[in-house]
């Protein structure tokens, strides 16, 4: 047996946009997490506010769950469209809950699927007085079927509507309880106490990479963030904006992304830790200031959350198509550090690390994430960062005789000073001499270019991390991948023997030597990534000369699922 079945329980809730589908899914995830389970949720939605089809899946498991799956154990359909699109995904022994007050029909489902008819619409309007409470009614019914805690749900409703009139939470609670009771009475013979509270419950948080990045920024002492709203990273600004006074930072919504990065550079020039976040389209506008940060040696952290591209592309779907863009964006050469975290945990820690790297190397540090991890919640234990210390690098805060901002050094790192302390220097986008005055001589150009680029060599020696290898060193198949594919691959690994996985997080500088060592021992290498042209494969080829034996590329806007990886491995083993 190659495959061992240990899949998580997958609940999928779908309905019309504007009816709180996503928040209902998140409530299920939080209740499961509070009850002692691990969760991973994944949402699909079109780029509009009302009327389209929204669907969210919550994978629930006893142990950590790292990716969404293709199958569904429990489908909650608030409209007919959800049934049309997803009822075939429900596996035998699974369940479908549908709104019996909505004239919906369930057809063509697998054998042994339990059907729960619940008049959601009717309960919401009769008990709550509003259709908008449909999602609350659905939640009451879901918890009733799965044996989840209705008290937890009522508590969460109170928390959610804390700022609203008391009657709002009261009516919602009444709706939840009514739906819960309805199911207890009508479907008492089909209930499965799957979500019953576990005795030992570790404290966990249910967060997305967007939220982890925002939290990591705050923890790392970020002081200035300029973020223009753009899917899929807007939640970073939503998380940052409310806490400015408490944590002592400024969040500014600028007029465009050009301004965003220039503002962050200006703030960093003044001496504060600065951040910007955007998606590929916004980063197109930032490319100009990306190189400005490079030549002026101004530290800045850039978050780039990829989505289906080019142009407006697939605004609310995922892709990993900006790797080569961020690696080569802007004219000419300048040192850039590019990191690609693979999950919530890595997003948090690499954000914190990015602030230190940016200040140490006085250069832009870019974190490459994607819609999939930016917007998928994962339950994790609260972040542990005791070992982290803020390192501001070679920072001159007092007046110094004969101070030179761009002094040529062996490491490439020069002493950075700030306006107001009495040192005179020019931070110059023109090629400049050691003080910063514009200087176009041949000797100076070579010296300054070499100095800047030397920082990457220093970084390679002092900070670059080796790729992590998961699974046995002796494997028949080695998967090489990066970014958000990590979760699905690790899930797949649990179902396969003799397969290991190389997870690369440093895109620039690149761990060439470490990868050469790993790859020369590998029997058969499979490249997995979510873009059309195999961009990481190209980078790997450029740096190591190595070509993977096979590739699994996906570019339909959906993340790669564990099942797809398992299937690919099976076909490789069969061939």
């Amino acid at each position, binding site marked *: 047996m190659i495959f061992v079945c240990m899949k998580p329980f997958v609940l999928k809730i779908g309905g019309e946009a504007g009816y709180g589908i996503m928040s209902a899914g998140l409530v299920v995830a939080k209740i499961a*997490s*509070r009850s002692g389970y691990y969760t991973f949720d994944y949402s699909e939605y079109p780029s509009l506010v009302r009327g389209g089809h929204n669907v969210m899946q919550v994978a629930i498991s006893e142990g950590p769950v790292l990716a969404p799956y293709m199958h569904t154990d429990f489908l909650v359909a608030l409209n007919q469209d959800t049934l049309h699109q997803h009822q075939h995904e429900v596996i035998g022994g699974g369940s479908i809950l549908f709104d019996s007050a909505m004239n919906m029909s369930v057809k063509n489902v697998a054998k042994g699927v339990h059907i729960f008819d619940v008049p959601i619409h009717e309960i919401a309007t009769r008990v709550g007085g509003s259709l908008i409470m449909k999602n609350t009614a659905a939640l009451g019914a879901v918890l009733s079927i799965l044996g989840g805690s209705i008290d937890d749900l009522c508590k969460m409703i109170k928390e959610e509507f804390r700022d609203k009139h008391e009657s709002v939470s009261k009516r919602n609670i009444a709706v939840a309880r009514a739906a819960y009771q309805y199911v207890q009475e009508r479907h008492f013979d089909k209930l499965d106490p799957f979500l019953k509270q576990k005795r030992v419950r570790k404290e*966990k*948080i*249910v967060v997305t990479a967007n939220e982890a990045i925002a*939290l990591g920024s*705050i*923890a*790392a*002492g970020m*002081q*200035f963030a*300029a973020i223009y709203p753009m899917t899929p990273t807007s939640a970073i600004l939503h998380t940052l904006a409310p806490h*400015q*006074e408490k*944590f*002592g*930072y*400024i969040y*500014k919504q*600028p*007029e*465009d992304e*050009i*301004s*965003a990065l*220039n*503002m*962050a*550079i*200006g*703030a*960093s*020039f*003044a001496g*504060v*830790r*600065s951040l910007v976040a955007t998606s590929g389209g916004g980063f197109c506008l930032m490319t*100009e*200031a990306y190189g*400005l940060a490079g030549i*002026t040696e101004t530290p800045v952290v850039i978050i780039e959350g990829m989505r289906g591209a080019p142009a407006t592309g697939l605004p609310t779907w995922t892709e990993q198509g900006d790797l080569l863009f961020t690696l080569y964006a802007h004219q000419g050469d300048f040192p850039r550090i590019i990191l690609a975290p693979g999950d919530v945990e890595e997003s948090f820690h690499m954000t914190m690390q990015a602030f230190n790297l940016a200040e140490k190397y006085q250069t832009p540090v870019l974190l490459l994430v994607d819609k999939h991890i930016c917007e998928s919640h994962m339950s994790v234990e609260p972040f542990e*960062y005791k070992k*982290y*210390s*803020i390192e501001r690098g070679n920072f001159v805060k007092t007046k110094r005789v004969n101070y030179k901002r761009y002094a040529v050094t062996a490491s490439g790192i020069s002493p950075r000073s*700030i*306006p*107001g302390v*009495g*040192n*005179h220097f*020019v*931070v*110059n*986008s*023109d090629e400049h001499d050691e003080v*910063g*005055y*514009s200087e176009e001589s041949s000797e100076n150009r070579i010296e300054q270019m070499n100095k800047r680029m030397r920082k990457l060599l220093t970084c390679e020696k002092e900070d670059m991390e080796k790729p992590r290898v998961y699974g046995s060193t002796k494997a028949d198949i080695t998967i090489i991948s990066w970014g958000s594919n990590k979760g699905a691959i690790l899930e797949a690994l649990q179902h396969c023997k003799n397969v290991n996985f190389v997870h690369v997080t440093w895109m620039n500088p690149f761990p060439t030597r470490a990868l050469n060592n790993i790859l020369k021992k590998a029997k058969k290498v499979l490249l997995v990534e979510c873009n059309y042209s195999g961009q990481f494969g190209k980078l790997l080829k450029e740096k190591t000369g190595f070509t993977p034996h096979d590739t699994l590329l996906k570019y339909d806007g959906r993340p790669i699922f564990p099942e797809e990886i398992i299937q690919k491995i099976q076909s490789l083993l069969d061939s």
Partner: protein
Amino acid sequence: MSKKKLQPKQYLTGAALSTPKPCTWCPGCGDFGIWSAFRAACMQEKWDNKNTALVAGIGCHGHIINFVKITAFEGLHGRALPVASGLKMANHDLNVFVFTGDGDSLSEGGNHFIHAARRNQNLTVILHDNALYALTTGQASPRTPKGQVTKSTPGGNIDDPLHPLRLALSAGATFLAREYSGNVESLKEIIIEANKHEGFSVIQVMQPCVSFNKVYTHRFFQENIYKLPEDYDPTDTFSAYQKTFEWDYKKIPVGILYQEKRKSYEAQLPVISKKTLVKQPVKKKTITSLYKKFI
């Protein structure tokens, strides 16, 4: 004896502001007047590396950062304002001067100009207006008059020019002035006033390009500007708006056209109400209190 006693008390001298870099503007360039006026203002007001920073865009104007010994950031074409805004938000104790050109701030950086004015960022913008692109050897700019022949408009410019002060006024700037670069003493006073003003200050400096602009010459401005009368009331928005329409022979007003008392952007940021951002130490933060939302 200690050397300290022998040193003169710290008065800023011209020498203290000088850099080793030779000036690269064309002989007769209007930028010399701006340079002189700015240096004179620095000396009078003791603006130095402890209290002042400069931000410049790209164009002939931007070279000024090589000739004034005050810490400066020379950024990208059109992007001086966002850099200056970030700088000022992070350290509002600094006097921040933005040197920009008409192409820099009105064409490439038009969006930033409007929004920095709207936010009333506490910055002093010195707009070197030579009504064309000089560093790229003489193409039309948003300030080039209709009909003017330039390298990019060989048949005569068919675009109408932009009026930066009218634009700034309607966008929300709270201090507007105009001066001819040859009036060094008056320009110096205006620069000082603009810096004292809390909010977004724009000084349009008519700066003849002797190499490429044969229309807006020194002589043209010397003959056609007039000083706003003593009894002119710069707090009246409507008369200021009317003044921005005056651009005729013998009828180009110079002086402070508009001044309004309104809170600057920086004054409305609670985080920096007591201390500048840069003076608040960078610390590792405990985020446990933020977890509540995620449980």
